[in-house]
Protein backbone atom coordinates (compact mmCIF):
# COMPACT_ATOMS: atom_id res chain seq x y z
CA UNK A 1 0.00 0.00 0.00
CA UNK A 2 1.46 3.28 -1.03
CA UNK A 3 0.84 5.96 1.59
CA UNK A 4 2.94 8.54 -0.19
CA UNK A 5 0.49 9.97 -2.73
CA UNK A 6 -2.51 10.43 -0.44
CA UNK A 7 -0.22 11.93 2.17
CA UNK A 8 1.32 14.35 -0.31
CA UNK A 9 -2.18 15.35 -1.41
CA UNK A 10 -3.28 15.94 2.19
CA UNK A 11 -0.20 18.06 2.77
CA UNK A 12 -0.80 20.08 -0.41
CA UNK A 13 -4.48 20.43 0.48
CA UNK A 14 -3.79 21.87 3.92
CA UNK A 15 -1.07 24.15 2.57
CA UNK A 16 -3.55 25.60 0.07
CA UNK A 17 -6.19 25.97 2.78
CA UNK A 18 -3.71 27.72 5.08
CA UNK A 19 -2.93 30.25 2.35
CA UNK A 20 -6.66 30.80 1.91
CA UNK A 21 -6.99 32.23 5.45
CA UNK A 22 -6.70 36.07 5.72
CA UNK A 23 -4.59 35.95 8.89
CA UNK A 24 -2.02 33.65 7.31
CA UNK A 25 -1.97 35.73 4.12
CA UNK A 26 -1.19 38.80 6.20
CA UNK A 27 1.48 36.98 8.24
CA UNK A 28 3.27 35.29 5.36
CA UNK A 29 2.78 37.47 2.33
CA UNK A 30 2.17 40.71 4.15
CA UNK A 31 -1.03 41.60 2.32
CA UNK A 32 -4.39 39.94 1.68
CA UNK A 33 -4.70 38.03 -1.58
CA UNK A 34 -7.36 38.70 -4.22
CA UNK A 35 -10.75 37.22 -3.28
CA UNK A 36 -10.63 35.11 -6.45
CA UNK A 37 -7.19 33.72 -5.56
CA UNK A 38 -8.39 32.93 -2.06
CA UNK A 39 -11.43 31.21 -3.51
CA UNK A 40 -9.33 29.16 -5.93
CA UNK A 41 -6.95 28.15 -3.11
CA UNK A 42 -9.90 27.05 -1.01
CA UNK A 43 -11.40 24.96 -3.80
CA UNK A 44 -8.02 23.48 -4.76
CA UNK A 45 -7.29 22.57 -1.13
CA UNK A 46 -10.65 20.92 -0.69
CA UNK A 47 -10.26 19.02 -3.94
CA UNK A 48 -6.81 17.77 -2.95
CA UNK A 49 -8.20 16.44 0.33
CA UNK A 50 -11.17 14.81 -1.39
CA UNK A 51 -8.82 13.29 -3.94
CA UNK A 52 -6.69 11.82 -1.14
CA UNK A 53 -9.84 10.37 0.40
CA UNK A 54 -10.91 8.96 -2.96
CA UNK A 55 -7.58 7.20 -3.50
CA UNK A 56 -7.55 5.68 -0.02
CA UNK A 57 -11.15 4.49 -0.22
CA UNK A 58 -10.67 3.07 -3.70
CA UNK A 59 -7.61 1.13 -2.63
CA UNK A 60 -8.59 0.06 0.85
CA UNK A 61 -12.37 0.24 1.02
CA UNK A 62 -14.44 2.57 3.15
CA UNK A 63 -13.50 1.19 6.54
CA UNK A 64 -9.70 1.24 6.42
CA UNK A 65 -9.73 4.07 3.86
CA UNK A 66 -11.54 6.45 6.18
CA UNK A 67 -9.31 5.58 9.11
CA UNK A 68 -6.20 6.16 7.02
CA UNK A 69 -7.60 9.44 5.73
CA UNK A 70 -8.14 10.61 9.28
CA UNK A 71 -4.55 9.74 10.18
CA UNK A 72 -3.05 11.34 7.06
CA UNK A 73 -4.98 14.58 7.46
CA UNK A 74 -4.16 14.91 11.16
CA UNK A 75 -0.45 14.55 10.56
CA UNK A 76 -0.50 16.73 7.44
CA UNK A 77 -2.31 19.54 9.28
CA UNK A 78 0.23 19.26 12.10
CA UNK A 79 3.14 19.55 9.68
CA UNK A 80 1.61 22.62 7.99
CA UNK A 81 1.12 24.29 11.38
CA UNK A 82 4.71 23.50 12.43
CA UNK A 83 5.96 24.95 9.13
CA UNK A 84 3.93 28.13 9.72
CA UNK A 85 5.34 28.44 13.23
CA UNK A 86 8.84 27.89 11.91
CA UNK A 87 8.34 30.51 9.20
CA UNK A 88 7.00 33.05 11.71
CA UNK A 89 9.98 32.42 14.02
CA UNK A 90 12.48 32.88 11.19
CA UNK A 91 10.94 36.19 10.16
CA UNK A 92 11.00 37.56 13.68
Amino acid at each position, binding site marked *: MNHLLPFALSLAGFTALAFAVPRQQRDIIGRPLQPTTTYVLRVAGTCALLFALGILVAEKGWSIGLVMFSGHTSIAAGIVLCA*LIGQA*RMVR
Partner: protein
Amino acid sequence: MSTLHTWAGLLLGWVLYAMFLTGTVSYFKDELSQWMRPELPRLSQIPDQAVVAQRLADELGNIAPGTSQWSIRLPDERNNSVYAFWRTTPRNPGQRGFGEGNFDPATGQRVASRDTLGGEFFYRFHFQFHYMPVVWGRWLAGAAAMFMLVAIVSGVITHKKIFVDFFTFRWGKRQRSWLDAHNSLSVFGLPFHFMITYTGLVTLMALYMPWGEQVAFKTPAERQQLSAELSAFIQPDKPSGQKTALASVADMVRQAQERWGRDSIGRVTAVHPGDAAARVSVARGEAGRVSMSPQYMEFEGATGKLLTVRESVGAAAETRGVLYALHLGRFSDTEMRWLYFLVSFMGTAMVGTGLVMWTVKRRQKLPDPGCPYFGFRLVERLNIASIAGLSIAMTAFLWANRLLPHPFESRADWEVHAFFIVWGLTLLHAVVRPARSAWVEQLWAASALLFLLPLLNAFTTQRPLWHSLVEGDRVFAGIDMMCWALALLHAVLAIRTARQGAISQSRIKPKRQAPVVTSREAAG
Protein backbone atom coordinates in the same frame (compact mmCIF):
# COMPACT_ATOMS: atom_id res chain seq x y z
CA MET B 1 -19.99 25.79 28.91
CA SER B 2 -16.48 27.04 29.49
CA THR B 3 -16.71 26.13 33.17
CA LEU B 4 -18.01 22.69 32.24
CA HIS B 5 -15.08 22.20 29.86
CA THR B 6 -12.55 23.30 32.48
CA TRP B 7 -13.85 21.08 35.24
CA ALA B 8 -14.69 18.06 33.11
CA GLY B 9 -11.13 18.25 31.82
CA LEU B 10 -9.45 18.84 35.14
CA LEU B 11 -11.23 16.53 37.56
CA LEU B 12 -10.22 13.30 35.92
CA GLY B 13 -7.50 14.95 33.82
CA TRP B 14 -4.62 13.18 35.51
CA VAL B 15 -6.31 9.82 35.07
CA LEU B 16 -7.04 10.71 31.45
CA TYR B 17 -3.45 11.75 30.82
CA ALA B 18 -2.21 8.41 32.14
CA MET B 19 -4.83 6.55 30.10
CA PHE B 20 -3.90 8.45 26.95
CA LEU B 21 -0.15 7.94 27.28
CA THR B 22 -0.27 4.26 28.23
CA GLY B 23 -2.89 3.74 25.52
CA THR B 24 -0.62 5.43 23.00
CA VAL B 25 2.31 3.14 23.71
CA SER B 26 -0.05 0.17 23.68
CA TYR B 27 -0.25 0.46 19.89
CA PHE B 28 3.23 -1.04 20.08
CA LYS B 29 2.55 -3.40 22.95
CA ASP B 30 3.59 -6.51 21.06
CA GLU B 31 6.88 -4.90 20.07
CA LEU B 32 7.45 -3.82 23.68
CA SER B 33 6.73 -7.36 24.83
CA GLN B 34 9.36 -8.67 22.43
CA TRP B 35 11.87 -6.10 23.68
CA MET B 36 11.14 -7.11 27.26
CA ARG B 37 11.85 -10.78 26.55
CA PRO B 38 15.28 -10.39 24.94
CA GLU B 39 16.18 -14.05 25.43
CA LEU B 40 13.53 -15.08 22.93
CA PRO B 41 14.96 -14.96 19.40
CA ARG B 42 13.24 -12.79 16.84
CA LEU B 43 11.13 -14.55 14.26
CA SER B 44 12.64 -13.73 10.90
CA GLN B 45 9.73 -15.52 9.29
CA ILE B 46 6.42 -16.61 10.70
CA PRO B 47 6.40 -20.35 11.38
CA ASP B 48 3.60 -22.43 9.92
CA GLN B 49 0.69 -21.72 12.23
CA ALA B 50 -0.77 -25.20 11.76
CA VAL B 51 2.40 -26.84 13.05
CA VAL B 52 2.66 -24.45 16.01
CA ALA B 53 -1.01 -25.02 16.91
CA GLN B 54 -0.48 -28.79 17.03
CA ARG B 55 2.68 -28.39 19.09
CA LEU B 56 0.87 -26.22 21.63
CA ALA B 57 -2.18 -28.50 21.73
CA ASP B 58 0.12 -31.40 22.65
CA GLU B 59 1.93 -29.34 25.26
CA LEU B 60 -1.31 -28.12 26.84
CA GLY B 61 -2.47 -31.72 27.00
CA ASN B 62 0.52 -32.32 29.30
CA ILE B 63 0.27 -29.12 31.31
CA ALA B 64 -3.48 -28.95 31.78
CA PRO B 65 -4.98 -32.41 31.42
CA GLY B 66 -8.71 -32.42 32.03
CA THR B 67 -9.12 -28.67 31.52
CA SER B 68 -12.55 -27.55 30.37
CA GLN B 69 -11.07 -25.05 27.91
CA TRP B 70 -7.80 -23.82 26.51
CA SER B 71 -7.06 -21.10 24.02
CA ILE B 72 -3.88 -20.15 22.18
CA ARG B 73 -2.92 -17.03 20.27
CA LEU B 74 -0.67 -18.08 17.41
CA PRO B 75 2.54 -16.23 16.54
CA ASP B 76 2.33 -13.65 13.77
CA GLU B 77 4.33 -10.77 12.34
CA ARG B 78 4.39 -8.97 15.66
CA ASN B 79 4.52 -11.83 18.16
CA ASN B 80 7.45 -14.15 18.63
CA SER B 81 5.83 -16.05 21.46
CA VAL B 82 2.59 -17.92 21.77
CA TYR B 83 0.22 -16.87 24.50
CA ALA B 84 -2.02 -19.55 25.95
CA PHE B 85 -4.51 -19.74 28.75
CA TRP B 86 -6.52 -22.59 30.19
CA ARG B 87 -9.25 -22.95 32.76
CA THR B 88 -8.44 -24.67 36.04
CA THR B 89 -10.64 -25.80 38.86
CA PRO B 90 -9.92 -23.45 41.74
CA ARG B 91 -9.12 -25.43 44.87
CA ASN B 92 -9.86 -22.57 47.22
CA PRO B 93 -12.59 -19.99 46.79
CA GLY B 94 -11.11 -16.72 45.57
CA GLN B 95 -8.36 -18.47 43.64
CA ARG B 96 -8.13 -17.62 39.97
CA GLY B 97 -9.85 -20.12 37.77
CA PHE B 98 -7.29 -20.07 35.00
CA GLY B 99 -3.63 -20.52 34.17
CA GLU B 100 -1.69 -18.69 31.48
CA GLY B 101 1.74 -18.56 29.95
CA ASN B 102 3.91 -17.64 27.02
CA PHE B 103 5.36 -20.43 24.91
CA ASP B 104 8.16 -20.76 22.42
CA PRO B 105 6.68 -21.46 18.97
CA ALA B 106 9.74 -23.48 17.95
CA THR B 107 9.64 -25.95 20.83
CA GLY B 108 6.17 -25.61 22.34
CA GLN B 109 7.84 -25.28 25.75
CA ARG B 110 7.24 -22.38 28.12
CA VAL B 111 9.54 -19.53 27.19
CA ALA B 112 12.82 -19.72 29.03
CA SER B 113 12.83 -15.96 29.28
CA ARG B 114 12.58 -13.50 32.14
CA ASP B 115 9.19 -13.29 33.82
CA THR B 116 7.51 -10.08 32.67
CA LEU B 117 4.14 -8.68 31.74
CA GLY B 118 5.81 -6.84 28.86
CA GLY B 119 3.77 -4.30 26.92
CA GLU B 120 0.69 -6.00 28.31
CA PHE B 121 1.15 -4.00 31.53
CA PHE B 122 0.64 -0.62 29.83
CA TYR B 123 -2.26 -2.06 27.87
CA ARG B 124 -4.07 -3.37 30.94
CA PHE B 125 -3.25 -0.27 32.99
CA HIS B 126 -4.79 1.81 30.22
CA PHE B 127 -8.30 0.57 30.95
CA GLN B 128 -8.26 -1.10 34.36
CA PHE B 129 -5.31 0.39 36.28
CA HIS B 130 -3.63 -1.68 38.97
CA TYR B 131 -3.81 -2.52 42.67
CA MET B 132 -7.59 -2.40 42.55
CA PRO B 133 -10.29 -4.85 41.57
CA VAL B 134 -10.51 -5.06 37.79
CA VAL B 135 -14.18 -4.05 37.78
CA TRP B 136 -13.51 -0.88 39.79
CA GLY B 137 -10.66 0.04 37.48
CA ARG B 138 -12.86 -0.39 34.43
CA TRP B 139 -15.61 1.70 35.98
CA LEU B 140 -13.07 4.43 36.73
CA ALA B 141 -11.82 4.25 33.14
CA GLY B 142 -15.41 4.51 31.94
CA ALA B 143 -16.06 7.55 34.12
CA ALA B 144 -12.89 9.18 32.80
CA ALA B 145 -13.92 8.44 29.20
CA MET B 146 -17.32 9.98 29.89
CA PHE B 147 -15.64 13.11 31.27
CA MET B 148 -13.44 13.17 28.19
CA LEU B 149 -16.47 13.01 25.92
CA VAL B 150 -18.05 15.90 27.81
CA ALA B 151 -14.76 17.82 27.61
CA ILE B 152 -14.51 17.27 23.83
CA VAL B 153 -18.05 18.38 23.07
CA SER B 154 -17.99 21.35 25.47
CA GLY B 155 -14.49 22.21 24.20
CA VAL B 156 -15.68 22.50 20.60
CA ILE B 157 -18.50 24.80 21.78
CA THR B 158 -16.31 26.84 24.15
CA HIS B 159 -13.48 27.44 21.73
CA LYS B 160 -15.86 28.31 18.92
CA LYS B 161 -13.03 29.77 16.94
CA ILE B 162 -10.93 26.62 16.78
CA PHE B 163 -11.96 26.00 13.20
CA VAL B 164 -11.46 29.63 12.14
CA ASP B 165 -8.10 29.76 13.91
CA PHE B 166 -7.16 26.40 12.49
CA PHE B 167 -3.65 27.43 11.48
CA THR B 168 -3.06 30.07 14.13
CA PHE B 169 -0.28 29.79 16.65
CA ARG B 170 0.91 32.90 18.48
CA TRP B 171 4.38 32.25 19.83
CA GLY B 172 5.62 33.63 23.14
CA LYS B 173 2.27 35.02 24.26
CA ARG B 174 1.94 32.93 27.41
CA GLN B 175 -1.66 32.05 27.98
CA ARG B 176 -2.51 32.79 24.33
CA SER B 177 0.21 30.41 23.11
CA TRP B 178 -0.94 27.72 25.47
CA LEU B 179 -4.49 28.08 24.26
CA ASP B 180 -3.38 27.98 20.62
CA ALA B 181 -1.32 24.86 21.23
CA HIS B 182 -4.17 23.21 23.08
CA ASN B 183 -6.60 24.13 20.28
CA SER B 184 -4.35 22.96 17.47
CA LEU B 185 -3.64 19.65 19.14
CA SER B 186 -7.34 19.17 19.74
CA VAL B 187 -8.66 20.19 16.37
CA PHE B 188 -6.14 18.28 14.22
CA GLY B 189 -6.97 15.04 15.86
CA LEU B 190 -10.61 15.85 16.58
CA PRO B 191 -12.10 12.98 14.54
CA PHE B 192 -9.60 10.65 16.17
CA HIS B 193 -10.14 11.93 19.72
CA PHE B 194 -13.87 11.72 19.42
CA MET B 195 -13.67 8.27 17.88
CA ILE B 196 -11.18 6.92 20.42
CA THR B 197 -13.17 8.19 23.40
CA TYR B 198 -16.51 6.97 22.13
CA THR B 199 -15.20 3.58 21.01
CA GLY B 200 -13.38 3.28 24.32
CA LEU B 201 -16.77 3.33 25.98
CA VAL B 202 -18.08 0.82 23.45
CA THR B 203 -15.33 -1.70 24.25
CA LEU B 204 -16.70 -2.05 27.77
CA MET B 205 -20.35 -1.26 27.09
CA ALA B 206 -21.57 -4.62 28.33
CA LEU B 207 -20.06 -3.77 31.72
CA TYR B 208 -21.38 -0.21 31.88
CA MET B 209 -24.83 -0.87 30.45
CA PRO B 210 -25.81 -4.44 31.20
CA TRP B 211 -29.53 -3.85 31.69
CA GLY B 212 -30.77 -4.10 28.12
CA GLU B 213 -29.03 -7.42 27.76
CA GLN B 214 -30.40 -8.65 31.09
CA VAL B 215 -33.95 -7.79 30.08
CA ALA B 216 -33.72 -9.10 26.54
CA PHE B 217 -31.91 -12.41 27.01
CA LYS B 218 -33.28 -14.68 29.68
CA THR B 219 -32.70 -18.28 28.66
CA PRO B 220 -29.24 -19.88 28.52
CA ALA B 221 -29.76 -20.57 24.81
CA GLU B 222 -30.33 -16.89 24.09
CA ARG B 223 -27.28 -15.94 26.12
CA GLN B 224 -25.18 -18.45 24.24
CA GLN B 225 -26.40 -16.97 20.99
CA LEU B 226 -25.42 -13.52 22.19
CA SER B 227 -21.94 -14.60 23.13
CA ALA B 228 -21.54 -16.30 19.74
CA GLU B 229 -22.21 -12.91 18.13
CA LEU B 230 -19.52 -11.28 20.23
CA SER B 231 -16.65 -13.74 20.43
CA ALA B 232 -15.17 -16.87 18.97
CA PHE B 233 -15.07 -18.54 22.35
CA ILE B 234 -17.35 -21.53 22.54
CA GLN B 235 -19.00 -21.87 25.91
CA PRO B 236 -18.23 -25.29 27.38
CA ASP B 237 -21.25 -27.59 27.66
CA LYS B 238 -21.24 -30.66 29.83
CA PRO B 239 -18.46 -33.14 28.97
CA SER B 240 -19.57 -36.66 28.05
CA GLY B 241 -17.10 -38.25 30.44
CA GLN B 242 -15.83 -40.54 27.70
CA LYS B 243 -12.14 -40.12 26.91
CA THR B 244 -11.25 -39.55 23.29
CA ALA B 245 -8.07 -38.00 21.98
CA LEU B 246 -8.29 -34.74 20.08
CA ALA B 247 -8.09 -35.12 16.29
CA SER B 248 -5.31 -33.35 14.42
CA VAL B 249 -5.44 -29.65 15.30
CA ALA B 250 -2.95 -28.98 12.52
CA ASP B 251 -5.46 -30.26 9.94
CA MET B 252 -8.16 -27.99 11.30
CA VAL B 253 -5.87 -24.97 11.14
CA ARG B 254 -4.88 -25.95 7.56
CA GLN B 255 -8.52 -25.80 6.49
CA ALA B 256 -8.79 -22.31 7.98
CA GLN B 257 -5.53 -21.29 6.28
CA GLU B 258 -6.97 -22.33 2.93
CA ARG B 259 -9.89 -20.04 3.57
CA TRP B 260 -8.22 -16.97 5.05
CA GLY B 261 -4.56 -17.20 4.11
CA ARG B 262 -1.43 -18.79 5.58
CA ASP B 263 -0.67 -16.26 8.31
CA SER B 264 -4.20 -15.07 9.04
CA ILE B 265 -5.13 -17.36 11.88
CA GLY B 266 -5.62 -15.65 15.21
CA ARG B 267 -6.69 -18.07 17.88
CA VAL B 268 -7.38 -21.72 18.39
CA THR B 269 -9.73 -22.59 21.22
CA ALA B 270 -10.73 -26.04 22.44
CA VAL B 271 -13.44 -26.99 24.90
CA HIS B 272 -13.20 -30.27 26.80
CA PRO B 273 -10.13 -31.44 24.88
CA GLY B 274 -9.66 -35.17 25.41
CA ASP B 275 -13.38 -35.75 25.85
CA ALA B 276 -15.73 -37.25 23.26
CA ALA B 277 -17.75 -34.00 23.33
CA ALA B 278 -14.72 -31.82 22.50
CA ARG B 279 -15.08 -28.95 20.06
CA VAL B 280 -12.41 -26.74 18.53
CA SER B 281 -12.77 -23.30 17.02
CA VAL B 282 -10.17 -21.74 14.74
CA ALA B 283 -10.64 -17.98 14.60
CA ARG B 284 -9.45 -15.59 11.93
CA GLY B 285 -6.82 -13.03 12.95
CA GLU B 286 -7.49 -9.31 13.27
CA ALA B 287 -5.13 -8.01 10.60
CA GLY B 288 -6.61 -6.40 7.52
CA ARG B 289 -10.25 -6.17 8.60
CA VAL B 290 -11.77 -3.33 10.58
CA SER B 291 -13.94 -5.48 12.79
CA MET B 292 -13.49 -7.42 15.97
CA SER B 293 -16.59 -9.49 15.19
CA PRO B 294 -15.69 -13.16 15.37
CA GLN B 295 -15.03 -15.15 12.23
CA TYR B 296 -14.31 -18.76 12.96
CA MET B 297 -14.62 -22.37 11.90
CA GLU B 298 -15.90 -24.86 14.40
CA PHE B 299 -14.79 -28.48 14.40
CA GLU B 300 -15.79 -31.63 16.19
CA GLY B 301 -12.80 -32.33 18.42
CA ALA B 302 -12.87 -36.11 18.31
CA THR B 303 -13.13 -36.49 14.54
CA GLY B 304 -11.90 -33.15 13.16
CA LYS B 305 -15.12 -32.78 11.17
CA LEU B 306 -16.03 -29.22 10.19
CA LEU B 307 -19.31 -28.27 11.88
CA THR B 308 -19.90 -24.62 10.98
CA VAL B 309 -18.22 -21.64 9.41
CA ARG B 310 -19.21 -18.26 10.85
CA GLU B 311 -18.21 -15.23 8.88
CA SER B 312 -20.84 -12.67 9.71
CA VAL B 313 -22.86 -11.44 12.64
CA GLY B 314 -26.00 -9.32 12.98
CA ALA B 315 -25.95 -5.61 12.20
CA ALA B 316 -25.88 -4.47 15.83
CA ALA B 317 -23.05 -6.87 16.71
CA GLU B 318 -21.14 -5.82 13.61
CA THR B 319 -21.46 -2.15 14.56
CA ARG B 320 -19.94 -2.96 17.89
CA GLY B 321 -17.27 -5.08 16.20
CA VAL B 322 -16.22 -2.21 13.94
CA LEU B 323 -16.16 0.39 16.72
CA TYR B 324 -14.17 -2.00 18.90
CA ALA B 325 -11.66 -2.60 16.12
CA LEU B 326 -11.30 1.12 15.44
CA HIS B 327 -10.26 1.63 19.05
CA LEU B 328 -7.67 -1.12 19.13
CA GLY B 329 -6.27 -0.50 15.65
CA ARG B 330 -5.09 -4.11 15.35
CA PHE B 331 -6.19 -4.33 11.74
CA SER B 332 -3.47 -1.91 10.75
CA ASP B 333 -0.19 -2.31 8.96
CA THR B 334 2.98 -0.71 10.28
CA GLU B 335 2.39 2.70 8.67
CA MET B 336 -1.16 2.85 9.98
CA ARG B 337 0.06 1.92 13.43
CA TRP B 338 2.48 4.82 13.35
CA LEU B 339 -0.34 7.17 12.34
CA TYR B 340 -2.42 5.89 15.24
CA PHE B 341 0.54 6.34 17.54
CA LEU B 342 1.29 9.89 16.41
CA VAL B 343 -2.27 11.16 16.54
CA SER B 344 -2.80 9.48 19.87
CA PHE B 345 0.40 11.17 21.05
CA MET B 346 -1.14 14.48 20.01
CA GLY B 347 -4.18 13.56 22.10
CA THR B 348 -1.91 12.98 25.09
CA ALA B 349 -0.40 16.41 24.50
CA MET B 350 -3.89 17.87 24.26
CA VAL B 351 -4.77 16.56 27.72
CA GLY B 352 -1.39 17.66 29.09
CA THR B 353 -1.61 21.22 27.70
CA GLY B 354 -5.16 21.45 29.03
CA LEU B 355 -4.01 20.46 32.52
CA VAL B 356 -1.14 22.93 32.53
CA MET B 357 -3.41 25.68 31.20
CA TRP B 358 -5.50 25.51 34.32
CA THR B 359 -2.51 26.76 36.33
CA VAL B 360 -1.28 29.17 33.64
CA LYS B 361 -4.63 30.95 33.59
CA ARG B 362 -4.92 31.19 37.34
CA ARG B 363 -1.32 32.12 38.06
CA GLN B 364 -1.88 35.60 36.65
CA LYS B 365 -4.77 36.22 38.97
CA LEU B 366 -3.07 35.05 42.14
CA PRO B 367 -3.11 37.71 44.86
CA ASP B 368 0.31 36.59 46.04
CA PRO B 369 2.21 34.35 43.57
CA GLY B 370 4.72 33.44 46.26
CA CYS B 371 2.02 31.82 48.31
CA PRO B 372 -0.76 30.41 46.16
CA TYR B 373 -3.86 28.87 47.68
CA PHE B 374 -4.03 25.16 48.39
CA GLY B 375 -6.07 24.14 45.33
CA PHE B 376 -3.61 25.81 42.99
CA ARG B 377 -0.63 24.16 44.63
CA LEU B 378 -2.38 20.80 44.52
CA VAL B 379 -3.11 21.01 40.79
CA GLU B 380 0.41 22.27 40.09
CA ARG B 381 2.08 19.39 41.95
CA LEU B 382 -0.22 16.75 40.54
CA ASN B 383 0.51 18.08 37.06
CA ILE B 384 4.25 17.65 37.58
CA ALA B 385 3.97 14.12 38.91
CA SER B 386 1.40 12.97 36.41
CA ILE B 387 3.06 14.46 33.33
CA ALA B 388 6.84 14.51 33.86
CA GLY B 389 6.61 11.89 36.61
CA LEU B 390 4.77 9.41 34.42
CA SER B 391 7.53 9.58 31.79
CA ILE B 392 10.03 8.68 34.51
CA ALA B 393 7.87 5.90 35.92
CA MET B 394 7.25 4.31 32.52
CA THR B 395 10.95 4.39 31.73
CA ALA B 396 11.68 2.96 35.18
CA PHE B 397 9.46 0.02 34.31
CA LEU B 398 11.70 -0.73 31.34
CA TRP B 399 14.82 -0.25 33.48
CA ALA B 400 13.43 -2.71 36.02
CA ASN B 401 12.95 -5.20 33.21
CA ARG B 402 16.65 -5.10 32.47
CA LEU B 403 17.95 -4.79 36.04
CA LEU B 404 15.88 -7.16 38.17
CA PRO B 405 17.62 -10.52 38.47
CA HIS B 406 16.08 -13.60 36.94
CA PRO B 407 14.96 -16.09 37.95
CA PHE B 408 13.44 -14.16 40.83
CA GLU B 409 10.27 -14.79 42.79
CA SER B 410 7.30 -12.75 41.41
CA ARG B 411 9.62 -10.85 39.12
CA ALA B 412 6.86 -9.60 36.82
CA ASP B 413 5.06 -8.14 39.83
CA TRP B 414 8.20 -6.34 40.96
CA GLU B 415 8.59 -4.66 37.61
CA VAL B 416 5.13 -3.22 38.17
CA HIS B 417 5.92 -2.31 41.79
CA ALA B 418 9.01 -0.47 40.51
CA PHE B 419 6.79 1.57 38.18
CA PHE B 420 4.52 2.65 41.03
CA ILE B 421 7.33 3.20 43.56
CA VAL B 422 9.11 5.52 41.13
CA TRP B 423 5.87 7.30 40.28
CA GLY B 424 5.20 7.81 43.99
CA LEU B 425 8.70 9.21 44.44
CA THR B 426 8.14 11.74 41.65
CA LEU B 427 5.04 12.98 43.47
CA LEU B 428 7.03 13.30 46.68
CA HIS B 429 9.72 15.19 44.81
CA ALA B 430 7.12 17.50 43.24
CA VAL B 431 5.71 18.28 46.67
CA VAL B 432 8.99 19.10 48.39
CA ARG B 433 10.66 21.10 45.60
CA PRO B 434 9.66 24.51 44.22
CA ALA B 435 7.33 23.92 41.27
CA ARG B 436 9.59 25.14 38.47
CA SER B 437 12.66 23.33 39.77
CA ALA B 438 10.57 20.19 40.10
CA TRP B 439 9.49 20.43 36.44
CA VAL B 440 13.04 20.98 35.21
CA GLU B 441 14.58 18.27 37.37
CA GLN B 442 11.97 15.68 36.48
CA LEU B 443 12.18 16.43 32.77
CA TRP B 444 15.96 16.07 32.93
CA ALA B 445 15.61 12.84 34.89
CA ALA B 446 13.23 11.42 32.28
CA SER B 447 15.57 12.51 29.51
CA ALA B 448 18.60 10.91 31.16
CA LEU B 449 16.80 7.64 31.90
CA LEU B 450 15.53 7.42 28.32
CA PHE B 451 18.92 8.28 26.87
CA LEU B 452 20.72 5.66 28.96
CA LEU B 453 18.20 2.87 28.35
CA PRO B 454 19.71 1.69 25.01
CA LEU B 455 23.12 1.64 26.73
CA LEU B 456 21.70 -0.43 29.57
CA ASN B 457 20.22 -2.73 26.97
CA ALA B 458 23.61 -3.07 25.30
CA PHE B 459 25.28 -4.03 28.60
CA THR B 460 22.63 -6.42 29.88
CA THR B 461 21.53 -8.29 26.75
CA GLN B 462 23.08 -9.89 23.70
CA ARG B 463 21.20 -7.46 21.47
CA PRO B 464 22.82 -3.99 21.50
CA LEU B 465 21.75 -1.38 18.95
CA TRP B 466 24.59 -1.96 16.50
CA HIS B 467 23.81 -5.66 16.51
CA SER B 468 20.09 -5.00 15.90
CA LEU B 469 20.90 -2.64 13.03
CA VAL B 470 23.19 -5.18 11.37
CA GLU B 471 20.68 -7.97 11.84
CA GLY B 472 17.79 -5.81 10.60
CA ASP B 473 15.95 -6.36 13.87
CA ARG B 474 13.37 -3.58 13.57
CA VAL B 475 11.81 -4.11 16.98
CA PHE B 476 14.99 -3.73 19.01
CA ALA B 477 16.50 -1.01 16.84
CA GLY B 478 13.18 0.84 16.73
CA ILE B 479 12.71 0.88 20.48
CA ASP B 480 16.30 1.94 21.14
CA MET B 481 16.02 4.82 18.71
CA MET B 482 12.58 5.80 19.96
CA CYS B 483 14.11 6.10 23.45
CA TRP B 484 16.67 8.55 22.11
CA ALA B 485 14.03 10.56 20.27
CA LEU B 486 11.97 10.82 23.45
CA ALA B 487 15.09 11.66 25.48
CA LEU B 488 15.72 14.54 23.09
CA LEU B 489 12.13 15.74 23.41
CA HIS B 490 12.34 15.76 27.21
CA ALA B 491 15.70 17.54 27.11
CA VAL B 492 14.30 20.29 24.86
CA LEU B 493 11.36 20.72 27.21
CA ALA B 494 13.63 20.84 30.24
CA ILE B 495 15.85 23.50 28.64
CA ARG B 496 12.86 25.60 27.57
CA THR B 497 11.23 25.36 30.97
CA ALA B 498 14.45 26.38 32.71
CA ARG B 499 14.97 29.29 30.31
CA GLN B 500 11.41 30.54 30.70
CA GLY B 501 11.92 30.40 34.44
CA ALA B 502 15.07 32.48 34.23
CA ILE B 503 13.37 35.10 32.05
CA SER B 504 10.35 35.50 34.24
CA GLN B 505 12.43 35.71 37.42
CA SER B 506 14.43 38.59 35.98
CA ARG B 507 11.24 40.56 35.39
CA ILE B 508 10.19 43.18 37.79
CA LYS B 509 6.62 42.08 38.05
CA PRO B 510 6.76 38.73 39.74
CA LYS B 511 3.05 38.37 39.14
CA ARG B 512 3.47 37.59 35.49
CA GLN B 513 5.36 34.39 35.74
CA ALA B 514 5.87 32.34 32.66
CA PRO B 515 4.12 29.08 32.11
CA VAL B 516 6.35 26.38 33.36
CA VAL B 517 6.27 24.04 30.43
CA THR B 518 5.77 24.13 26.74
CA SER B 519 3.15 22.46 24.71
CA ARG B 520 5.04 19.40 23.59
CA GLU B 521 5.92 18.46 27.08
CA ALA B 522 2.68 16.91 27.79
CA ALA B 523 3.39 14.47 25.08
CA GLY B 524 6.53 13.23 26.75
